[in-house]
């Protein structure tokens, strides 16, 4: 009969580390992580290697290719970035970040050893296991190669589980090409790598044109069996993946086997801030990886 209500103190409840999703406190919980290496790739993009500081937490941090995390520099900003490294390495991720705004312009100025906060991983990933025994075509336009690097790593690590693997990669100019130091390595793993630029310069020896051109070459003349047993992962600007997916569709690759990654504004990564909604679907929860059939059914997706 005490007329004073009891205060329920959520903050005082223990943090149940195993089940992040059931734990109220995981919402704003960030792993303290250290930037262990900063590697400039191009004028605009830098590769950061980031390692979770606490060994136990490092062990616990797992993700699937295609997922993203929220990176925070206190007082500066927090923003979503795709994880661009192999999912088999625990507690350490690589992010390839383009300088476009507040946080992304500040990051290149910090020193190795700086601590950042990371929350995640969030969102859906590419269903790599489902692709076992199948052919895979990975199509990347521009910065789209960044989220593709994780499935590429998976394919390489599990090369025997896949049949034919193609990467088609295009940028505007040769100077924008990312991860050039790794291209040879991919090829050595029996991955067919096609690179094309829109505008060649004098140093450029490869082909130039639209990304759909090499893609068409790859797809043309294959048998029905190939088309039915091929998965495609497509990342890049919306116009590009629209053309690419249309072409894949023409060759009767099932829409449910094509995957794209959408990009929207995000502030939480947890389906709360609503900023990433496409139509009324949360990109951060149902995406960023969607199969193309779902995208076709989303209003205002492309």
């Amino acid at each position: 009969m005490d007329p004073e209500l009891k205060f329920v103190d959520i903050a005082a409840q223990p943090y149940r580390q195993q089940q992040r999703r059931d734990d109220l406190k995981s919402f704003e919980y960030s792993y303290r992580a250290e930037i262990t290496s900063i590697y400039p790739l191009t004028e605009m993009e830098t590769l950061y290697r980031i390692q979770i500081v606490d060994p136990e937490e490092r062990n616990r941090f797992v993700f699937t290719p295609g997922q993203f995390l929220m990176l925070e520099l206190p007082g500066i900003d927090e923003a979503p970035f795709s994880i661009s490294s192999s999912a088999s390495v625990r507690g350490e991720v690589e992010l390839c970040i383009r300088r476009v705004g507040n946080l992304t312009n500040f990051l290149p100025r910090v020193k190795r050893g700086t601590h950042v906060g990371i929350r995640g991983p969030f969102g859906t990933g590419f269903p790599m296991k489902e692709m076992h025994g199948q052919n895979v075509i990975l199509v990347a336009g521009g910065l789209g190669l960044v989220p593709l690097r994780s499935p590429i790593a998976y394919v390489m690590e599990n090369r025997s589980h896949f049949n034919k693997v193609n990467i088609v990669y295009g940028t505007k100019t040769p100077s924008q090409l990312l991860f050039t130091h790794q291209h040879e390595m991919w090829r050595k793993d029996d991955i067919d790598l096609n690179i094309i630029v829109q505008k060649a310069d004098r140093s450029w020896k490869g082909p130039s044109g639209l990304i759909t051109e090499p893609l068409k070459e790859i797809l043309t003349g294959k048998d029905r069996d190939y088309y039915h047993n091929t998965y495609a992962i497509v990342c890049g600007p919306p116009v590009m993946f629209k053309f690419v997916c249309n072409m894949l569709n023409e060759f009767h690759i099932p829409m449910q086997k094509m995957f794209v990654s959408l990009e929207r504004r995000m502030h939480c990564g947890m389906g709360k801030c609503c900023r990433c909604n496409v139509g009324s679907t949360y990109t951060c929860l149902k995406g960023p990886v969607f199969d193309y059939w779902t995208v076709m059914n989303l209003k205002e997706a492309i």
Partner: protein
Amino acid sequence: MIFRIFEKEELKKLFEVFVAHNRVVGAVEAGRDRDDQPVYAFSDVSDYNEIKLDYSITKLPAKRFFLPFKEELATFRIENDNWTKDISYNIDRPLILFGLHPCDINALNKLDKVLLHSVYPMPYYAAKRKNMFIVGMNCVPQPSCFCRSMGTDTALHGFDMFITDLGGRYFVEILTNTAFNFLRHIRTMEPMEEDHILYMKVVEKRKKEFTAQVDTTDLTKILDMEFQSDVWKYWGDRCLACGTCASVCPTCYCYGVEETVDINLKGAKKTKILHSCNLIDFAEVAGGHNFRPERHSRLKYRYYHKHRGFVEAFEESLCVGCGRCGESCLAGITVPEVIESIRADGKE
């Protein structure tokens, strides 16, 4: 469910029990408008006379007590180029919401679905929600209320006790043990048969007082079919893109996050600020690309989220029909009119 009856003057006593030991929030008069009509707002109260039991509707919902317009998600201490993060859920004592109308209770129930019961619960909301004792109270329908169409004119759960004015005495539904214990501090009676009859009469009478309506039949599909409709442009031309509708809505929860550094460089803050999907930069991303640059596309999105997307996810709409948005909108854009126009356009 347990029911009780008590005499009018007991309510004051109950209030005094509440207030003597707890923080109480209720509807008060915040000012008078140009026609000398009272303007109501939820506010901390300590004096029973301040509370307006017969308030029509508050301009703003009790939002700031569960979804503050601005809230610190975290503070950082910055020292020697390193940082430590402190998190507080910004509440330190329970709160009694006294006299919440059914629409506002239902609004909380809807918010619970996203903010409490979805994959990632939001602790800032949960902390407040778990420390909230709700005394519901029946309302007099206003001309702008269309809650009946949204099925939110009565509250079935989401409160601790719910009081209905039967004229001379109060009829109370008791949902929680805490509420039951509180009621022990005043004199209550078991309701008699005639009390139940009277209660039914009051309910029946109130039901007839609702005037505004929205036809929600097949609304999700109609919205999909009319996605390209020019009617949206008509409303978009009127919209001021000022965000008022979302600010006054008891169920709108979108937000943005801002990080700031203290001027002495010794600390930093991460602040959550409620946003509105009608604002121009809602879907703008770095580099300047805007996924919804036109006013009408944003206005449309608001209706999509509330009346289609939410239905898809939770089988109910994210609108309780309180009519606040329409009342506060300077351009006079109201939910019933918008939905009616979309529906009419489909029929053409």
